Protein backbone atom coordinates (compact mmCIF):
# COMPACT_ATOMS: atom_id res chain seq x y z
CA UNK A 1 0.00 0.00 0.00
CA UNK A 2 2.63 2.52 1.04
CA UNK A 3 4.56 1.79 -2.16
CA UNK A 4 1.50 2.44 -4.32
CA UNK A 5 0.95 5.69 -2.44
CA UNK A 6 4.57 6.71 -2.91
CA UNK A 7 4.40 6.05 -6.62
CA UNK A 8 1.18 8.06 -6.93
CA UNK A 9 2.76 10.99 -5.09
CA UNK A 10 5.81 10.80 -7.28
CA UNK A 11 3.62 10.78 -10.38
CA UNK A 12 1.71 13.78 -9.10
CA UNK A 13 4.96 15.67 -8.44
CA UNK A 14 6.13 14.89 -11.95
CA UNK A 15 2.95 16.14 -13.56
CA UNK A 16 2.97 19.37 -11.58
CA UNK A 17 6.66 20.21 -11.75
CA UNK A 18 7.24 19.16 -15.36
CA UNK A 19 10.94 18.75 -14.52
CA UNK A 20 12.80 16.43 -16.92
CA UNK A 21 14.55 14.62 -14.04
CA UNK A 22 11.27 13.56 -12.45
CA UNK A 23 9.62 11.40 -15.07
CA UNK A 24 5.96 10.49 -14.98
CA UNK A 25 5.38 7.01 -13.58
CA UNK A 26 3.15 5.97 -16.43
CA UNK A 27 6.02 6.56 -18.85
CA UNK A 28 8.36 4.63 -16.59
CA UNK A 29 6.06 1.61 -16.50
CA UNK A 30 5.68 1.61 -20.25
CA UNK A 31 9.47 1.72 -20.49
CA UNK A 32 9.87 -1.14 -18.02
CA UNK A 33 7.66 -3.22 -20.25
CA UNK A 34 9.66 -2.21 -23.34
CA UNK A 35 12.96 -3.00 -21.64
CA UNK A 36 11.78 -6.41 -20.51
CA UNK A 37 10.82 -7.37 -24.06
CA UNK A 38 14.01 -6.06 -25.65
CA UNK A 39 16.42 -8.91 -26.54
CA UNK A 40 19.54 -6.78 -25.97
CA UNK A 41 18.37 -5.64 -22.57
CA UNK A 42 17.46 -9.17 -21.59
CA UNK A 43 20.90 -10.43 -22.51
CA UNK A 44 22.36 -7.62 -20.38
CA UNK A 45 20.26 -8.82 -17.48
CA UNK A 46 21.25 -12.38 -18.14
CA UNK A 47 24.91 -11.45 -17.97
CA UNK A 48 24.54 -9.33 -14.85
CA UNK A 49 22.45 -11.88 -12.99
CA UNK A 50 24.88 -14.68 -13.78
CA UNK A 51 27.64 -12.66 -12.15
CA UNK A 52 25.38 -11.84 -9.25
CA UNK A 53 24.44 -15.47 -8.78
CA UNK A 54 28.03 -16.67 -8.89
CA UNK A 55 29.29 -13.96 -6.56
CA UNK A 56 26.46 -14.46 -4.11
CA UNK A 57 26.81 -18.24 -4.05
CA UNK A 58 30.54 -18.07 -3.44
CA UNK A 59 29.94 -15.50 -0.70
CA UNK A 60 27.36 -17.69 1.00
CA UNK A 61 29.56 -20.79 0.95
CA UNK A 62 32.66 -19.04 2.24
CA UNK A 63 30.77 -16.66 4.49
CA UNK A 64 29.06 -19.47 6.39
CA UNK A 65 32.13 -21.71 6.41
CA UNK A 66 34.56 -19.07 7.66
CA UNK A 67 31.92 -17.57 9.96
CA UNK A 68 31.26 -20.91 11.66
CA UNK A 69 35.00 -21.50 12.09
CA UNK A 70 35.48 -18.00 13.53
CA UNK A 71 32.54 -18.46 15.89
CA UNK A 72 33.73 -21.85 17.11
CA UNK A 73 37.48 -21.28 17.39
CA UNK A 74 38.77 -18.20 19.17
CA UNK A 75 42.18 -18.50 17.52
CA UNK A 76 40.67 -18.33 14.04
CA UNK A 77 38.58 -15.35 15.03
CA UNK A 78 41.48 -13.51 16.66
CA UNK A 79 43.60 -14.08 13.57
CA UNK A 80 41.00 -12.96 11.05
CA UNK A 81 39.28 -10.21 13.04
CA UNK A 82 41.65 -7.31 12.05
CA UNK A 83 41.31 -8.20 8.37
CA UNK A 84 37.56 -8.54 8.61
CA UNK A 85 37.26 -5.15 10.30
CA UNK A 86 39.52 -3.64 7.69
CA UNK A 87 37.48 -5.03 4.81
CA UNK A 88 34.17 -4.15 6.46
CA UNK A 89 34.98 -0.53 7.21
CA UNK A 90 36.87 0.37 4.04
CA UNK A 91 34.76 1.28 1.02
CA UNK A 92 34.92 -1.69 -1.33
CA UNK A 93 35.03 0.62 -4.29
CA UNK A 94 38.60 1.60 -3.31
CA UNK A 95 39.75 -1.89 -4.18
CA UNK A 96 38.38 -1.70 -7.69
CA UNK A 97 41.73 -0.73 -9.26
CA UNK A 98 43.34 -3.74 -7.59
CA UNK A 99 40.72 -6.19 -8.84
CA UNK A 100 40.96 -4.52 -12.20
CA UNK A 101 44.73 -5.00 -12.23
CA UNK A 102 44.46 -8.67 -11.25
CA UNK A 103 41.54 -9.79 -13.37
CA UNK A 104 41.50 -7.19 -16.16
CA UNK A 105 38.24 -6.22 -17.77
CA UNK A 106 36.56 -9.56 -17.16
CA UNK A 107 33.54 -10.85 -15.38
CA UNK A 108 35.78 -12.14 -12.60
CA UNK A 109 36.72 -8.62 -11.59
CA UNK A 110 32.99 -7.92 -11.13
CA UNK A 111 32.36 -11.20 -9.34
CA UNK A 112 35.19 -10.51 -6.93
CA UNK A 113 33.75 -7.07 -6.23
CA UNK A 114 30.35 -8.67 -5.52
CA UNK A 115 32.05 -11.06 -3.11
CA UNK A 116 33.92 -8.15 -1.53
CA UNK A 117 30.63 -6.38 -0.93
CA UNK A 118 28.87 -9.35 0.60
CA UNK A 119 31.20 -11.94 2.12
CA UNK A 120 32.75 -9.96 4.98
CA UNK A 121 29.46 -8.81 6.36
CA UNK A 122 28.23 -12.39 6.20
CA UNK A 123 31.32 -13.77 7.97
CA UNK A 124 30.98 -11.30 10.83
CA UNK A 125 27.25 -11.98 11.23
CA UNK A 126 27.66 -15.76 11.19
CA UNK A 127 30.52 -15.48 13.69
CA UNK A 128 28.29 -13.62 16.13
CA UNK A 129 25.44 -16.06 15.52
CA UNK A 130 27.63 -19.07 16.27
CA UNK A 131 29.17 -17.44 19.34
CA UNK A 132 25.74 -16.88 20.84
CA UNK A 133 24.74 -20.56 20.60
CA UNK A 134 23.67 -21.75 24.06
CA UNK A 135 26.59 -23.28 25.96
CA UNK A 136 24.25 -25.75 27.67
CA UNK A 137 23.11 -27.28 24.40
CA UNK A 138 26.72 -27.67 23.31
CA UNK A 139 27.59 -29.27 26.64
CA UNK A 140 24.59 -31.58 26.33
CA UNK A 141 25.88 -32.74 22.95
CA UNK A 142 29.28 -33.46 24.41
CA UNK A 143 27.75 -35.48 27.28
CA UNK A 144 26.07 -37.66 24.66
CA UNK A 145 29.45 -38.13 23.02
CA UNK A 146 29.05 -35.88 19.98
CA UNK A 147 32.20 -35.43 17.93
CA UNK A 148 33.33 -31.96 16.91
CA UNK A 149 31.87 -32.47 13.43
CA UNK A 150 28.52 -33.64 14.83
CA UNK A 151 28.38 -30.70 17.22
CA UNK A 152 28.96 -28.26 14.36
CA UNK A 153 26.37 -29.90 12.12
CA UNK A 154 23.70 -30.80 14.68
CA UNK A 155 24.02 -27.95 17.21
CA UNK A 156 25.88 -24.90 15.95
CA UNK A 157 24.49 -24.71 12.44
CA UNK A 158 20.76 -25.16 13.15
CA UNK A 159 21.02 -22.93 16.19
CA UNK A 160 22.65 -20.13 14.21
CA UNK A 161 20.32 -20.52 11.19
CA UNK A 162 17.78 -17.77 12.03
CA UNK A 163 20.51 -15.15 12.37
CA UNK A 164 22.26 -16.48 9.29
CA UNK A 165 19.10 -15.97 7.25
CA UNK A 166 18.66 -12.42 8.51
CA UNK A 167 22.24 -11.77 7.45
CA UNK A 168 21.61 -13.40 4.06
CA UNK A 169 18.78 -10.97 3.34
CA UNK A 170 21.10 -8.03 3.93
CA UNK A 171 23.79 -9.79 1.92
CA UNK A 172 21.52 -9.99 -1.15
CA UNK A 173 21.22 -6.21 -1.14
CA UNK A 174 24.95 -5.76 -0.75
CA UNK A 175 25.66 -8.20 -3.57
CA UNK A 176 23.36 -6.26 -5.92
CA UNK A 177 25.20 -3.05 -4.98
CA UNK A 178 28.50 -4.77 -5.71
CA UNK A 179 27.23 -5.92 -9.09
CA UNK A 180 26.06 -2.46 -10.19
CA UNK A 181 29.23 -0.79 -8.94
CA UNK A 182 31.31 -3.37 -10.73
CA UNK A 183 29.47 -2.75 -13.96
CA UNK A 184 29.85 1.00 -13.61
CA UNK A 185 33.48 1.13 -12.59
CA UNK A 186 35.19 -2.00 -13.86
CA UNK A 187 33.78 -3.40 -17.04
CA UNK A 188 31.09 -1.24 -18.48
CA UNK A 189 28.66 -4.04 -19.24
CA UNK A 190 25.27 -5.34 -18.28
CA UNK A 191 22.65 -3.38 -16.41
CA UNK A 192 25.12 -0.86 -15.03
CA UNK A 193 26.37 0.01 -18.51
CA UNK A 194 22.86 0.41 -19.82
CA UNK A 195 21.92 2.69 -16.96
CA UNK A 196 24.98 4.81 -17.61
CA UNK A 197 24.16 5.17 -21.28
CA UNK A 198 20.59 6.21 -20.43
CA UNK A 199 21.99 8.79 -18.03
CA UNK A 200 24.32 10.20 -20.68
CA UNK A 201 21.37 10.67 -23.01
CA UNK A 202 19.47 12.35 -20.16
CA UNK A 203 16.88 9.60 -20.56
CA UNK A 204 15.48 9.76 -17.03
CA UNK A 205 12.57 7.49 -17.83
CA UNK A 206 15.04 4.77 -18.78
CA UNK A 207 17.17 5.31 -15.66
CA UNK A 208 14.13 5.03 -13.40
CA UNK A 209 12.78 2.02 -15.25
CA UNK A 210 16.07 0.18 -14.86
CA UNK A 211 16.37 1.14 -11.20
CA UNK A 212 12.90 -0.20 -10.46
CA UNK A 213 13.69 -3.48 -12.23
CA UNK A 214 16.91 -3.90 -10.24
CA UNK A 215 15.15 -3.15 -6.97
CA UNK A 216 12.46 -5.70 -7.86
CA UNK A 217 15.12 -8.32 -8.56
CA UNK A 218 16.70 -7.70 -5.16
CA UNK A 219 13.29 -7.88 -3.48
CA UNK A 220 12.47 -11.10 -5.33
CA UNK A 221 15.70 -12.69 -4.15
CA UNK A 222 14.85 -11.57 -0.64
CA UNK A 223 11.38 -13.10 -0.89
CA UNK A 224 12.94 -16.31 -2.16
CA UNK A 225 15.15 -16.39 0.94
CA UNK A 226 12.11 -15.79 3.13
CA UNK A 227 10.47 -18.94 1.83
CA UNK A 228 13.51 -20.97 2.88
CA UNK A 229 13.76 -19.09 6.14
CA UNK A 230 10.26 -20.08 7.15
CA UNK A 231 10.94 -23.69 6.28
CA UNK A 232 14.24 -24.02 8.08
CA UNK A 233 13.56 -21.76 11.03
CA UNK A 234 9.90 -22.33 11.76
CA UNK A 235 10.93 -23.05 15.37
CA UNK A 236 12.43 -19.61 15.96
CA UNK A 237 10.22 -16.85 17.39
CA UNK A 238 11.18 -14.23 14.79
CA UNK A 239 10.47 -16.53 11.83
CA UNK A 240 7.14 -17.54 13.29
CA UNK A 241 6.19 -13.94 13.98
CA UNK A 242 6.47 -13.11 10.28
CA UNK A 243 4.27 -16.03 9.19
Amino acid at each position, binding site marked *: MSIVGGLALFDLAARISKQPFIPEMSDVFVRIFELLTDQDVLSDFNRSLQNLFLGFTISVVFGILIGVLCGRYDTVERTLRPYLNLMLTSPSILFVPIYFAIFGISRWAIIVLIIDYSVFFLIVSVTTAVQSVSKE*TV*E*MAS*VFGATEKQTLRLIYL*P*SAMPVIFTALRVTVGRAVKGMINGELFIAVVGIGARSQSFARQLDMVGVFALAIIVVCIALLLGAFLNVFDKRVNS*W*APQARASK
Partner: protein
Amino acid sequence: MIKISNAHKTFVKPATRKTPERKVEVLNGIDLDIQENEFITIVGPSGCGKTTLLRAIAGLVKLDSGSIVAAGETVAGPSPDRAMVFQSFALMPWANVIRNVAFGLEIRGVDKEEREQTARDLIKTVGLAGFENSLPSELSGGMKQRVGLARALAVNPRILLMDEPFGGLDEQTKRLMQEELLRLWEAQRKTVVFVTHSLDEAILLADRCILMAARPGRITEVLDIPLGRPRTREAERTSTYIDLKEKIWDHLRTAQIQELAEKAN
Protein backbone atom coordinates in the same frame (compact mmCIF):
# COMPACT_ATOMS: atom_id res chain seq x y z
CA MET B 1 29.58 -49.00 40.14
CA ILE B 2 31.22 -45.62 40.70
CA LYS B 3 34.38 -45.24 42.77
CA ILE B 4 35.66 -41.77 43.47
CA SER B 5 39.09 -41.67 45.09
CA ASN B 6 40.70 -38.60 46.61
CA ALA B 7 39.27 -36.23 44.01
CA HIS B 8 40.68 -32.70 43.98
CA LYS B 9 39.66 -29.76 41.86
CA THR B 10 40.50 -26.10 42.24
CA PHE B 11 39.09 -23.39 40.01
CA VAL B 12 41.33 -20.43 39.43
CA LYS B 13 39.64 -17.13 38.73
CA PRO B 14 42.23 -15.08 36.86
CA ALA B 15 43.13 -11.68 38.28
CA THR B 16 41.31 -8.69 36.84
CA ARG B 17 42.27 -5.04 37.21
CA LYS B 18 40.13 -4.79 40.32
CA THR B 19 40.50 -8.17 42.01
CA PRO B 20 43.56 -10.35 42.58
CA GLU B 21 43.69 -13.97 41.41
CA ARG B 22 41.31 -16.16 43.39
CA LYS B 23 41.43 -19.87 43.96
CA VAL B 24 38.34 -21.81 44.89
CA GLU B 25 38.81 -25.36 46.12
CA VAL B 26 35.58 -26.94 44.96
CA LEU B 27 36.57 -30.55 45.53
CA ASN B 28 38.92 -31.41 48.35
CA GLY B 29 39.74 -35.06 48.75
CA ILE B 30 36.39 -36.56 47.83
CA ASP B 31 36.08 -40.31 48.42
CA LEU B 32 32.86 -42.05 47.56
CA ASP B 33 31.75 -45.55 46.59
CA ILE B 34 28.43 -45.93 44.85
CA GLN B 35 26.87 -49.36 44.46
CA GLU B 36 25.18 -50.67 41.35
CA ASN B 37 21.53 -49.53 41.10
CA GLU B 38 21.93 -47.30 44.10
CA PHE B 39 20.08 -44.00 44.22
CA ILE B 40 22.38 -41.30 45.59
CA THR B 41 21.37 -37.71 46.29
CA ILE B 42 23.87 -34.95 46.98
CA VAL B 43 22.84 -31.89 49.03
CA GLY B 44 24.87 -28.92 50.15
CA PRO B 45 25.01 -25.13 50.14
CA SER B 46 25.82 -23.42 46.86
CA GLY B 47 29.52 -23.46 46.08
CA CYS B 48 30.10 -26.77 47.84
CA GLY B 49 31.11 -28.47 44.61
CA LYS B 50 28.16 -30.83 44.27
CA THR B 51 27.54 -29.90 40.66
CA THR B 52 31.27 -30.01 39.90
CA LEU B 53 31.40 -33.51 41.36
CA LEU B 54 28.51 -34.58 39.13
CA ARG B 55 30.14 -32.99 36.08
CA ALA B 56 33.38 -34.74 36.94
CA ILE B 57 31.58 -38.09 36.97
CA ALA B 58 30.05 -37.14 33.61
CA GLY B 59 33.53 -36.43 32.26
CA LEU B 60 32.87 -32.74 31.64
CA VAL B 61 35.30 -31.55 34.32
CA LYS B 62 38.86 -32.80 34.55
CA LEU B 63 40.11 -33.47 38.07
CA ASP B 64 43.37 -31.92 39.25
CA SER B 65 44.19 -35.17 41.05
CA GLY B 66 42.46 -38.34 42.17
CA SER B 67 40.36 -40.60 40.00
CA ILE B 68 36.85 -41.65 39.18
CA VAL B 69 36.10 -45.14 37.96
CA ALA B 70 32.58 -45.60 36.57
CA ALA B 71 31.11 -48.83 35.21
CA GLY B 72 34.55 -50.36 35.15
CA GLU B 73 36.40 -47.63 33.27
CA THR B 74 38.41 -44.65 34.45
CA VAL B 75 36.54 -41.46 33.56
CA ALA B 76 38.46 -39.45 30.98
CA GLY B 77 35.53 -37.92 29.12
CA PRO B 78 31.86 -38.51 28.36
CA SER B 79 30.80 -42.12 27.82
CA PRO B 80 27.69 -43.93 26.60
CA ASP B 81 27.42 -45.56 30.03
CA ARG B 82 26.67 -42.20 31.65
CA ALA B 83 23.76 -39.97 30.62
CA MET B 84 22.86 -36.63 32.12
CA VAL B 85 19.69 -34.67 32.84
CA PHE B 86 20.19 -30.92 33.04
CA GLN B 87 18.53 -28.31 35.22
CA SER B 88 18.05 -26.02 32.22
CA PHE B 89 16.68 -28.97 30.17
CA ALA B 90 19.22 -28.21 27.37
CA LEU B 91 16.78 -29.18 24.64
CA MET B 92 17.34 -28.25 21.02
CA PRO B 93 14.65 -25.63 20.35
CA TRP B 94 14.63 -26.32 16.59
CA ALA B 95 13.98 -30.04 16.97
CA ASN B 96 10.66 -31.65 17.88
CA VAL B 97 10.25 -33.91 20.90
CA ILE B 98 11.04 -37.08 19.02
CA ARG B 99 14.28 -35.73 17.58
CA ASN B 100 15.31 -34.39 20.95
CA VAL B 101 14.71 -37.72 22.62
CA ALA B 102 16.52 -39.58 19.85
CA PHE B 103 19.51 -37.22 19.91
CA GLY B 104 21.89 -39.50 21.82
CA LEU B 105 21.10 -42.34 19.43
CA GLU B 106 21.54 -40.08 16.41
CA ILE B 107 25.02 -39.21 17.71
CA ARG B 108 25.76 -42.92 17.92
CA GLY B 109 24.72 -43.48 14.33
CA VAL B 110 21.62 -45.59 15.07
CA ASP B 111 19.49 -45.47 11.94
CA LYS B 112 16.52 -43.18 11.83
CA GLU B 113 13.73 -45.72 12.01
CA GLU B 114 15.20 -47.60 14.93
CA ARG B 115 16.05 -44.54 17.00
CA GLU B 116 12.64 -42.98 16.43
CA GLN B 117 10.98 -46.20 17.54
CA THR B 118 13.01 -46.18 20.75
CA ALA B 119 12.19 -42.50 21.21
CA ARG B 120 8.45 -43.12 20.72
CA ASP B 121 8.46 -45.84 23.35
CA LEU B 122 10.23 -43.63 25.87
CA ILE B 123 8.01 -40.65 25.13
CA LYS B 124 5.13 -42.91 26.13
CA THR B 125 6.98 -44.06 29.24
CA VAL B 126 7.49 -40.49 30.48
CA GLY B 127 3.85 -39.65 29.74
CA LEU B 128 4.25 -37.42 26.71
CA ALA B 129 2.41 -39.53 24.14
CA GLY B 130 0.74 -37.24 21.63
CA PHE B 131 3.49 -34.59 21.87
CA GLU B 132 5.99 -36.40 19.61
CA ASN B 133 5.96 -33.62 17.02
CA SER B 134 5.73 -30.65 19.37
CA LEU B 135 8.57 -28.17 19.64
CA PRO B 136 10.12 -27.50 23.06
CA SER B 137 8.70 -23.96 23.00
CA GLU B 138 5.23 -25.50 23.01
CA LEU B 139 5.87 -27.48 26.20
CA SER B 140 5.70 -26.51 29.87
CA GLY B 141 8.75 -26.82 32.13
CA GLY B 142 7.69 -30.17 33.51
CA MET B 143 7.08 -31.53 30.03
CA LYS B 144 10.47 -30.26 28.88
CA GLN B 145 12.16 -32.13 31.69
CA ARG B 146 10.24 -35.27 30.75
CA VAL B 147 11.85 -34.90 27.34
CA GLY B 148 15.23 -34.43 29.03
CA LEU B 149 14.68 -37.58 31.07
CA ALA B 150 13.52 -39.59 28.05
CA ARG B 151 16.57 -38.42 26.10
CA ALA B 152 18.87 -39.64 28.86
CA LEU B 153 17.06 -43.00 29.12
CA ALA B 154 17.08 -43.47 25.33
CA VAL B 155 20.77 -44.29 25.27
CA ASN B 156 20.13 -46.94 27.94
CA PRO B 157 22.92 -45.77 30.25
CA ARG B 158 24.02 -47.71 33.32
CA ILE B 159 24.47 -44.48 35.23
CA LEU B 160 22.04 -41.57 35.27
CA LEU B 161 23.43 -38.21 36.37
CA MET B 162 20.87 -35.60 37.34
CA ASP B 163 21.86 -31.99 37.99
CA GLU B 164 19.03 -30.36 39.96
CA PRO B 165 16.65 -31.58 37.29
CA PHE B 166 13.51 -30.32 39.01
CA GLY B 167 15.09 -27.17 40.43
CA GLY B 168 13.46 -24.91 37.91
CA LEU B 169 9.97 -26.34 38.22
CA ASP B 170 7.08 -25.10 40.32
CA GLU B 171 6.19 -27.00 43.48
CA GLN B 172 3.33 -29.15 42.25
CA THR B 173 5.13 -30.08 39.01
CA LYS B 174 8.23 -30.89 41.02
CA ARG B 175 6.32 -33.25 43.33
CA LEU B 176 4.72 -34.98 40.40
CA MET B 177 8.07 -35.39 38.66
CA GLN B 178 9.61 -36.87 41.81
CA GLU B 179 6.87 -39.46 41.97
CA GLU B 180 7.28 -40.25 38.27
CA LEU B 181 11.01 -40.64 38.71
CA LEU B 182 10.48 -43.07 41.60
CA ARG B 183 8.07 -45.08 39.48
CA LEU B 184 10.48 -45.15 36.51
CA TRP B 185 13.40 -46.13 38.70
CA GLU B 186 11.42 -48.99 40.27
CA ALA B 187 10.56 -50.28 36.81
CA GLN B 188 14.03 -49.88 35.34
CA ARG B 189 16.70 -49.69 38.04
CA LYS B 190 19.81 -47.72 37.32
CA THR B 191 22.60 -46.17 39.30
CA VAL B 192 21.47 -42.58 39.86
CA VAL B 193 23.44 -39.61 41.16
CA PHE B 194 21.05 -36.77 41.83
CA VAL B 195 22.16 -33.27 42.88
CA THR B 196 19.49 -31.19 44.59
CA HIS B 197 18.72 -28.19 46.75
CA SER B 198 15.52 -29.66 48.08
CA LEU B 199 15.58 -31.48 51.41
CA ASP B 200 12.44 -33.45 50.62
CA GLU B 201 13.81 -34.54 47.29
CA ALA B 202 17.10 -35.59 48.90
CA ILE B 203 15.31 -37.91 51.32
CA LEU B 204 12.34 -39.10 49.32
CA LEU B 205 14.35 -40.38 46.37
CA ALA B 206 17.55 -41.65 47.93
CA ASP B 207 19.08 -44.83 49.24
CA ARG B 208 21.90 -42.70 50.56
CA CYS B 209 22.16 -38.96 50.90
CA ILE B 210 25.56 -37.25 50.66
CA LEU B 211 25.96 -33.98 52.57
CA MET B 212 28.59 -31.59 51.32
CA ALA B 213 30.04 -28.34 52.69
CA ALA B 214 31.82 -25.47 50.96
CA ARG B 215 35.30 -23.91 51.16
CA PRO B 216 36.79 -26.32 50.59
CA GLY B 217 34.15 -28.48 48.91
CA ARG B 218 34.03 -31.73 50.84
CA ILE B 219 31.74 -34.54 51.99
CA THR B 220 30.78 -34.04 55.62
CA GLU B 221 28.33 -36.85 56.11
CA VAL B 222 26.79 -39.81 54.33
CA LEU B 223 23.28 -40.65 55.52
CA ASP B 224 21.58 -43.97 54.93
CA ILE B 225 17.91 -43.50 54.16
CA PRO B 226 16.25 -46.52 55.74
CA LEU B 227 12.85 -45.98 54.13
CA GLY B 228 11.30 -48.92 52.32
CA ARG B 229 10.95 -49.47 48.58
CA PRO B 230 8.90 -49.05 46.48
CA ARG B 231 8.60 -45.65 48.04
CA THR B 232 5.69 -43.26 47.90
CA ARG B 233 4.79 -39.91 49.45
CA GLU B 234 3.55 -41.85 52.48
CA ALA B 235 7.17 -42.01 53.60
CA GLU B 236 7.10 -38.29 54.30
CA ARG B 237 4.84 -38.89 57.28
CA THR B 238 7.11 -41.37 59.06
CA SER B 239 9.21 -40.30 62.04
CA THR B 240 12.36 -41.59 60.29
CA TYR B 241 11.70 -39.13 57.49
CA ILE B 242 11.10 -36.22 59.83
CA ASP B 243 14.24 -36.97 61.85
CA LEU B 244 16.32 -37.19 58.69
CA LYS B 245 14.98 -33.90 57.42
CA GLU B 246 15.83 -32.26 60.75
CA LYS B 247 19.35 -33.64 60.58
CA ILE B 248 19.99 -32.44 57.04
CA TRP B 249 18.54 -29.03 57.79
CA ASP B 250 20.79 -28.71 60.87
CA HIS B 251 23.74 -29.40 58.67
CA LEU B 252 22.72 -26.98 55.96
CA ARG B 253 21.87 -24.24 58.44
CA THR B 254 25.28 -24.51 60.07
CA ALA B 255 26.96 -24.34 56.68
CA GLN B 256 24.85 -21.38 55.63
CA ILE B 257 25.54 -19.43 58.84
CA GLN B 258 29.23 -20.16 58.56
CA GLU B 259 29.21 -18.83 55.04
CA LEU B 260 27.51 -15.61 56.14
CA ALA B 261 30.06 -15.17 58.91
CA GLU B 262 32.95 -15.73 56.49
CA LYS B 263 31.53 -13.21 54.07
CA ALA B 264 31.12 -10.64 56.84
CA ASN B 265 34.82 -10.89 57.75
